[in-house]
């Protein structure tokens, strides 16, 4: 039986119904609701159809990542990193591994082929993550068909990554100092075929969904986020770029082999409504898909050309036997599909276990603006705003 007393003690509402005005009421959305994209509970104060306030309640998927990381060596923490943003595990792995390698001072000894493979799989995963974001967003807005389309195309990517790493979503593929394994024979050709296959599909999605009148009416001029407010809220990733700021850590920090690759950073332009609305954010994700395909093709050219596979290439050759960084504080950040993923490490220099490992989840920080963006709008608009933030609860709660 539902026991309200328990709920009031463990996860109390911020607002009490006796404090509300007579026309206002509390509506609970979630934690099990399709439009919350996971186990997120929203305490919504409504006045009729209009939203007075939104209070997100988190923690339903809290898996103590930071506590675990304090008791495990760096290389054994990697599978936990996968499970944070489980839709883009490769990207989080890449960020984490990059941080540990820089602490060890071995980031320049990594073979170029390894770096290109890392960027290749990370961009494939970025595509997969954006496909979920776009597909579920269309479904939030009321279009059912694009979602299975996107899942179908994402499955091609997951199969490619499964072929390389052995797992569909949680890979543990990028290791500190190397890779779990070289790409399987024939991977480059199959991946190129996939690129040829996906380009018309992206265009189709663009035309059918993003240019669709109903979709534009639901998303343009909704949830407008000015760039200065976004920065103050720590917003990063496609959300920040949707507000018109050309800020991409792949360009700004120029990590890995990204400086050798030619790609654009798409930004929102307010084409359909006001700059920084939900449509702009979605359009940035759509355009980033094209850019990711471009990056993948360039990586494949390199991987079959300058850095092609050789018989004696061993991606584990530079994997350190013992990972023991010098005593230091270190913050590393990288551009994930959702935004800036950061890791703060404190190494004590005596053990191969970090004294402290903090994960800065992009979804967690991005979600904090939900209340600000939805106030004064309709409930349906709040769903549109939440979808355009693109959260993964694994990363919000960690």
């Amino acid at each position: 039986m539902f026991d309200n007393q328990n709920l009031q003690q463990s996860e109390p509402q911020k607002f009490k119904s006796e404090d509300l005005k007579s026309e206002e009421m509390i509506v609970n959305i979630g934690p099990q609701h399709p439009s919350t994209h996971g186990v997120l509970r929203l305490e919504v104060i409504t006045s009729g159809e209009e939203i007075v306030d939104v209070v997100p309640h988190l923690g339903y998927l809290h898996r103590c990542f930071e506590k675990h990381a304090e008791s495990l060596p760096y290389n054994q923490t990697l599978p936990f990193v996968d499970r944070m943003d489980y839709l883009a595990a490769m990207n989080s792995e890449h960020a984490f591994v990059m941080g540990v390698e820089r602490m060890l001072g071995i980031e320049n000894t990594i073979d170029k082929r390894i770096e290109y493979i890392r960027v290749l799989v990370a961009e494939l995963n970025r595509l997969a993550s954006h496909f979920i974001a776009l597909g579920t967003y269309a479904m939030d807005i009321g279009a059912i068909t694009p979602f299975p389309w996107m899942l179908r195309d994402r499955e091609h990517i997951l199969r490619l990554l499964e072929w390389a790493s052995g797992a569909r979503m949680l890979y543990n593929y990028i290791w500190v100092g190397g890779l779990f394994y070289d790409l399987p024979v024939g991977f480059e050709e199959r991946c190129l075929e996939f690129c040829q296959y996906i380009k018309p599909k992206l265009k189709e999605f663009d035309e059918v969904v993003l240019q669709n009148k109903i979709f534009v009416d639901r998303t343009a001029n909704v949830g407008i986020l000015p760039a200065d407010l976004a920065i103050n809220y720590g917003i990063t990733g496609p959300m920040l770029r949707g507000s018109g700021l050309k800020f991409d850590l792949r360009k700004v920090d120029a990590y890995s082999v990204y400086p050798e690759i030619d790609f654009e950073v798409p930004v929102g332009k307010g084409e359909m409504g006001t700059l920084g609305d939900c449509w702009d954010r979605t359009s940035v994700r759509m355009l980033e898909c094209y850019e990711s395909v471009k990056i993948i093709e360039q990586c494949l050219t390199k991987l079959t050309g300058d850095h092609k596979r050789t018989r004696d290439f061993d991606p584990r050759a530079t994997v350190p036997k013992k990972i023991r960084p010098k005593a230091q504080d270190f913050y590393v950040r990288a551009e994930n599909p959702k935004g800036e993923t950061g890791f703060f490490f404190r190494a004590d220099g005596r053990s191969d276990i970090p004294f402290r490992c903090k994960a800065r989840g992009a979804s967690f920080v991005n979600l904090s603006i939900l209340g600000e963006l939805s106030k004064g709008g309709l409930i349906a608009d709040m769903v549109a705003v939440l979808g355009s933030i693109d959260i993964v609860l694994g990363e919000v709660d960690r």
Partner: protein
Amino acid sequence: MTFEAIISKLKAEFGEGLVVSIDETASPNCLEVHADRLVETMEYLHQTEGLYFDSLSCITGLDNGPEAGTMEVIYNLYSIPCDHHLMVKVTLSRKEPVLDSLTPIWKTADWQEREVYDLFGIHFNNHPDLRRILLPADWEGFPLRKDYEHQTYYRGVKVAE
């Protein structure tokens, strides 16, 4: 702007006493200030031309354990227009970990400070809404403290070993 330039600019504004210590092995380089001078330092870093740290990327809590008797809060700042980084650190006593909130300067501090409060029990003055964020409101103790021992039962359910 280089780390040295930032430090000398801060010293010129607030005097030599502001900077408790400097850690150049940290990446980005780290500056430690007194907890009671944190807000004015951050305000200066946020608003001064040439510094303009408009983005607070990450707030990390840290417990040095009961022997050391201290806790730390570490702020990672980044300036988007000037493209420079800074790490700012404060050390607190473990007995009474209290700090002023940075929510008046950066809205992003709201949730990140709530997370530090939730996992370390560090209290933030002037925070608009200091509630637990990840754990249930009636959870006992602060899990990321080094001497944390979890409760055996939570609402009649055995907590895993």
